[in-house]
Each structure stands twice: as structure tokens, then as C-alpha cells.
């Protein structure tokens, strides 16, 4: 292996990249855009749930209940129904997600010490929001029941809870570090998955084959510029996360750099494998979506926690490299984890990098036809 040949290929690739400023710009724009969307637009916190109230009682007690509902901040009463039919219409059309009916004798039952009925219907299609909404309502009605009876008695068991690592339970702090892993995986694969297929498609591979360049030299040379771009993306993402979104970074920057390098190397080699096998840019793009984007997004635990998945899928996530990088990034950002805690995940990433690079070298046949 000669360094000068790697350098020559890298230089050629770099020239080609620079000649296509649009792709390059998008390579930088993509992480920034995704971080902005996740940082500003998306929140997993459920509040302002649209609610329609059908108050048949029209008493001070029922009005108090509605006031409690609104004051909690979780519900936004968008409509007061005059007729039972309106409830069905509102839920059908999606105007409201929750419908609460307060029956005629609600306040009379409470006054007489009888069980007062309260009817709640939720739109269950979005099961997550529905479950949370039902939980809120159950808690609210319990508190309301105690309050209007003037009970201030403390429950027998006091719960002292503390939250570690992310004391304010901000979803942004949990999503952004993991998101960086997803971005890196997608970018790595998008950038490299076409770079060898393109040479075959355009016919320039024959020219490369005619040169004395050897397979590992060609692959390393091809990867070098993308490695560089990937690292800029990484630095950009981390800077944005810390400065713009105020996500704490408690770990070591040195560890972050080393592990990111290993992950990036593996991700790029993986993209190269796809490119080598398919020899077609169209097929390559489709495969890289299935093999990188979807698993990185859905099976890495970056947002959908792995412990909730069905057993077979939990096992499947073990072969998703992004899973390990997500765990490492969350540890580095929020927990300030040291090498001792990260080593197991880091070893998997190293293994991934070694295997993909070896396979890429094996699969590449420097021959025409």
C-alpha cells in the first residue's frame, strides 16, 4: 500500500466533490436542518390536547371541574357542545381528541354523597396521546374530588423522586445527542453509497482499473474526503447541540472524537460495500435507505426505546451499529460517562468498522465485466 496513491485518489475524489457544490452544500445543510427541526419543532411532551366539553349540569361544581381541566395546561377546550351529536362530529373530524360529558345530576350526586359519574371519550387512533390524556384526566378528577371535599390529608406514603442526568426531563436533551448518531449514519451512507457505483455507471471505472492503484488504496482514497466532510458535520452538530440548544456536554471531547472517528469509518465502509455490490446508483440509493436510514432511525433507541420492543426486534437491534453510537453519545452528553462505561459499546463499533472495511476490500473486484 502506497500513501501517494491513496493521496492521488483522495485528491481526485475531492475535486469531484468540489465540482458538485450542490451536493456538498446539502451534505452540510442536512444535519443542520434536522437538528433545527428536532430542536425546535418536535416535542414529545403532550399538552394542549384539544377537548370538547358537554356540560349538562351547568353548575358551579361542573364549571370548577372544567376550570381545573384548562388550568392544568394539558387540555385546551376548543368547543362547548350543545348537543350530544356534536361530540361524535368533533371526534370524527379530528377537531377534538377528548370529549368530556358532565351528566345532569353531577353536582346533585356530589352534594348527596353519591357516586357522581363523569364520562370521557378519547380518540384512540393516536394511542400514545390517548393513553397520556386518559392518565391526566384520571389524576385530575382524583385531585378535584379531594379538593372540593376539602380534604388536605396527605397520603400515607410520600414519594420522593429524583431525576438523574436530565433533571428537567427535557425531551430535547434526550433526542439531540441520539440524533447526531442518526445523522452521521445517514450522511455517511448517502455520501459513499453512490461513489463507486457512479464510476461503474459512467464508465470511468475502467480508467481506474487501468491504473496501478490497489483495492485498499482505492477504498481508503475514496473514503478520505468523505471522512473529512463527516467530521465537519459532526463538529457542526455538536456545536449546535451545545450552543444553540443548551444540551449539556459532560463527557470528554477526546473520547467523542476518537469514537466518532471509528463510527464514521465503519459507516463510510458500509456505504462503500453497498456501492460496490450494486454497481447501480438507483439500486444503491434504495438499499442504503433500507440498510442505514431506517434502522438508524427506528431501531437505534435514539427515540423509540429498545426495552419496549418485542423480543426478536430487541435482538435485531444488536446488529444496528447506530444503537451503540446512540448509547455512547447519550452517555457522553448527559452522563459524562468515562471509558469504563463506554468500552463495551465502543468495542462493537470497532468491530463494525473492521468488518465492513474488510468486506469492502474483499468484495471489490478490480476487473471488467
Amino acid at each position, binding site marked *: 500500500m502506497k500513501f501517494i496513491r491513496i493521496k492521488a485518489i483522495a485528491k481526485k475524489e475531492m475535486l469531484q466533490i468540489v465540482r458538485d457544490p450542490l451536493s456538498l452544500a446539502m451534505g452540510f445543510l442536512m444535519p443542520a436542518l434536522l437538528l433545527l427541526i428536532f430542536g425546535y419543532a418536535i416535542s414529545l411532551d403532550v399538552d394542549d390536547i384539544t377537548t370538547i366539553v358537554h356540560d349538562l349540569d351547568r353548575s358551579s361544581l361542573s364549571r370548577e371541574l372544567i376550570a381545573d381541566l384548562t388550568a392544568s395546561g394539558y387540555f385546551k377546550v376548543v368547543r362547548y357542545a350543545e348537543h350530544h351529536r356534536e361530540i361524535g362530529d368533533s371526534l370524527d373530524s379530528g377537531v377534538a381528541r377528548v370529549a368530556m360529558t358532565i351528566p345532569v345530576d353531577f353536582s346533585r350526586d356530589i352534594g348527596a354523597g353519591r357516586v357522581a*359519574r363523569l364520562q370521557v371519550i*378519547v380518540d384512540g387512533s393516536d*394511542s*400514545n396521546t390517548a393513553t397520556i390524556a386518559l392518565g391526566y384526566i384520571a389524576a385530575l378528577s382524583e385531585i378535584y374530588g379531594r379538593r372540593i371535599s376539602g380534604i388536605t390529608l396527605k397520603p400515607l406514603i410520600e414519594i420522593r423522586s429524583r431525576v438523574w442526568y436530565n433533571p428537567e426531563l427535557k425531551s430535547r436533551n434526550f433526542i439531540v445527542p441520539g440524533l447526531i448518531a442518526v445523522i452521521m449514519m445517514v450522511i455517511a451512507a448517502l455520501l459513499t453509497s453512490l461513489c463507486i457505483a457512479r464510476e461503474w455507471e459512467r464508465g470511468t471505472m475502467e480508467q481506474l482499473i487501468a491504473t496501478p492503484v490497489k483495492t485498499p488504496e482505492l477504498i481508503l482514497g475514496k473514503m478520505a474526503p468523505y471522512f473529512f466532510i463527516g467530521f465537519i458535520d459532526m463538529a457542526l452538530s455538536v456545536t449546535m447541540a451545545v450552543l444553540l440548544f443548551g444540551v449539556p456536554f459532560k463527557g470528554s471531547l477526546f473520547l467523542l472524537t476518537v469514537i466518532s472517528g471509528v463510527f464514521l469509518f465503519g459507516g463510510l465502509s458500509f456505504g462503500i460495500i453497498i456501492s460496490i455490490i450494486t454497481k447501480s446508483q438507483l439500486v444503491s440509493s434504495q*438499499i442504503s435507505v433500507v440498510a442505514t436510514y431506517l434502522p438508524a432511525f427506528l431501531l437505534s433507541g435514539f427515540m423509540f*426505546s429498545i426495552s419496549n420492543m418485542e423480543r426478536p426486534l430487541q435482538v435485531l437491534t444488536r446488529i444496528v451499529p447506530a444503537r451503540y453510537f446512540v448509547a455512547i453519545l447519550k452517555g457522553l452528553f448527559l452522563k459524562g460517562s468515562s471509558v469504563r462505561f463506554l468500552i463495551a459499546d465502543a468495542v462493537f463499533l470497532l468491530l463494525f468498522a473492521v468488518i465492513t472495511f474488510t468486506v469492502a476490500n474483499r468484495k471489490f473486484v478490480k476487473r471488467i465485466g
Partner: protein
Amino acid sequence: MLSESVERIKQMVVKEFIQIFRDKRMKAIVFVIPLLQTMVFGYAVTMDVNNIPTAVYDLDRSYESRELVRRLTASGYFDVLYTLGSPAEVQDLLDRSKVTLSVQINRGFSADLHRRIPTAVQLLVDGTDSNTGIVALDYATRIILKYAGDLAPSGSQLAARIDLRQRAWYNPELKSKNYNVPGVIAMVIMLTSLLLTSMAVVREREIGTMEQLMVTPLRPAELIMGKTIPFAIIAFFDMILVTAFGVLVFNIPINGSLVLLPLSTAIYLLSILGIGLVISTVAKTQQQALMSTFLFYMPAVLLSGFMFPIENMPDFFQYLTYANPLRYFLIIIRGLFLKGNGMEILWPQMAALLIIGTVVITLSALRFRKRLV
């Protein structure tokens, strides 16, 4: 004249199909991508929180403390994986992300309970995953308070008794797969058609075969139709595939009209293929087409209500979603599957899709003509 035009489009469609499927792997891809997504969304992707890995540090070792742990386990939300012997272990397990919640029951817990003296239970939560953290705290709190209430019934008897009757419509068991799988239809069509359309057109230009097409009697409109019809057919095939799979394997209900499904898919396709064509007129290489497609696709998915409710977004982003065809199609398709909505409710969504479709198709046709000359 018209029949000649139809014949030319037909020839073009045939050529396109031969080209797409000459690569045997494409046949597999057209099958595998939709099925894989359906599987993953049917099985994996859920924001439902259960089986929360939990550690218990029980210093009291009494009947009451064991009963509390039993109730936590019996709820189905908590998986007690570790029973600890020292506080250092708690720290270690949380640091290594082995557990999300740790419950500490102090010595004297049962004694206090017997004497009706308020006592404490300590909960430690890993807040890294804020969603799970919140839900875990909420569940644990409710279970423990319920236990406290059962032990001292006198307090709760004084309170006004409210019988909360809860019902969930459309998805009574609150299963997330019922919500996600119909959405996959929208996702699959979007990704596959968008990427295939934009890349296939750019490929002709990159390889140089576009010039050959230009010397044929094909008119620009015929060329566009010939290029997009094959992908529309593939998209329809994928839609049927995911629907069949969702209904047969995941028991997703279809409560609405089966006529509206292909109709709305067709309208949705109009805007997706249009956007693919617009991208193809901007991109010069397949690399650019791939990057641009993703640059559009990812924000479109995130800002559609597919996984994250639109109402939770800041106003600015909520307005942005009005330009997103995925937003409308998701409402339609979920309405069709789960709510049994008909035309009388879904027409505004259909109209919006039709408008977006017309705009992007017109735009792409204008740009396409210019690029050809």
C-alpha cells in the same frame, strides 16, 4: 392523434419497466422495502412505555415492602431486574443504563405504616430518555398512592367519589400499530416513488440517453407521463401490499370505504410524483437527486404528524405543515382505516392534496420543458 400519443406513452412505459426491472434486485426492493417498514412499524415503533427496567433496593424486607414491589411488577409496566444490596449498585446500574428506575424502600417502612405515620419511598429515575422518565415516574406514583389509599381507606372515603367512565373510540385497545401501520402506506409511497422518479429521470441525463429520447417523436408531456406512470403503478402495488399485510398479519381494521383508498392514493401520488419531477429538474446528477430527495423527505416526515402530533409544534411549524402533502394523506388514510370517515369529512384533505398536486405538476412541467430545450 390521441391514439398515437397513447401509443407513444405506452412504449415509453414499457421501456421504463424493462429498465427498472432489468436489475433483478429492483424487483426485490419493490417488495422488501414496504414489507420491512410495515414490520418495523407494526412491531417496533411504539412510544408506549412498559417493561421499564427497574431495580429495587429494599431495606425493610417486610410483607408491606414486598407487596409494594409485587404491585409494581403486576402492573406490567415495571420489570424488576435487580434486587440490590447496596446504594453503590444503584449508581452503577443507572450509569450503565441497565435500569431506568430504582425504587428504594427504607428501613421502618412497614413499622411506620402500621402506626399510620406517613413514610417515604424514594424513586430515582434516569431522565436521559425524558419520555420514558416522565411516564415511569407517573406510573410508579400512581401505583404507590393507590397502595397507600388501600392501606388507609378512611381518608379516601371522605373525598367526593367520582366514577370516571373512560372510553377510547376508533382504537379501543389503544394499540399503536393501528395508528402506525396505515401511516406506513403514506411513507412507503413517498420514499419509493419520490426517490425512483427523481433518480430515474436524472439518470437519463447523467448517462446521456436523454438526448436519444429527445430525437424521438415523444412530446415533453408524453415523456413526463411515460416516466411517471411506471412509478405510479409501483406505488399502487406497494399500497395494496402494505394494506393486505397490515390487515392479514397485524389485524388492522378497515372501517372506511375501500373505494376511497385508491382514489385518495391517486390524488396523493399526483403531488409526490410532481415533487419528484421538480427535484429531477433541479438535480444534475443522481447524487444530487438522492441528497435533494432526502432533504425534502426527512422534514416532510417529521412535520407530518406521522410520529409527532402537529398540535405540539410551535405555530410557525404548524403553518409549514399545511404545505406538506403527507399531512393530508395521513389524515385521510387514518380516517379511512380507523374512523371509517367518508367523503363528507375527508373532502377538505382531498381538495388540499389536489391543489398541491396541480401546483407541483404544473411547476415541474414548466421547468421540464425548459430543461429539455
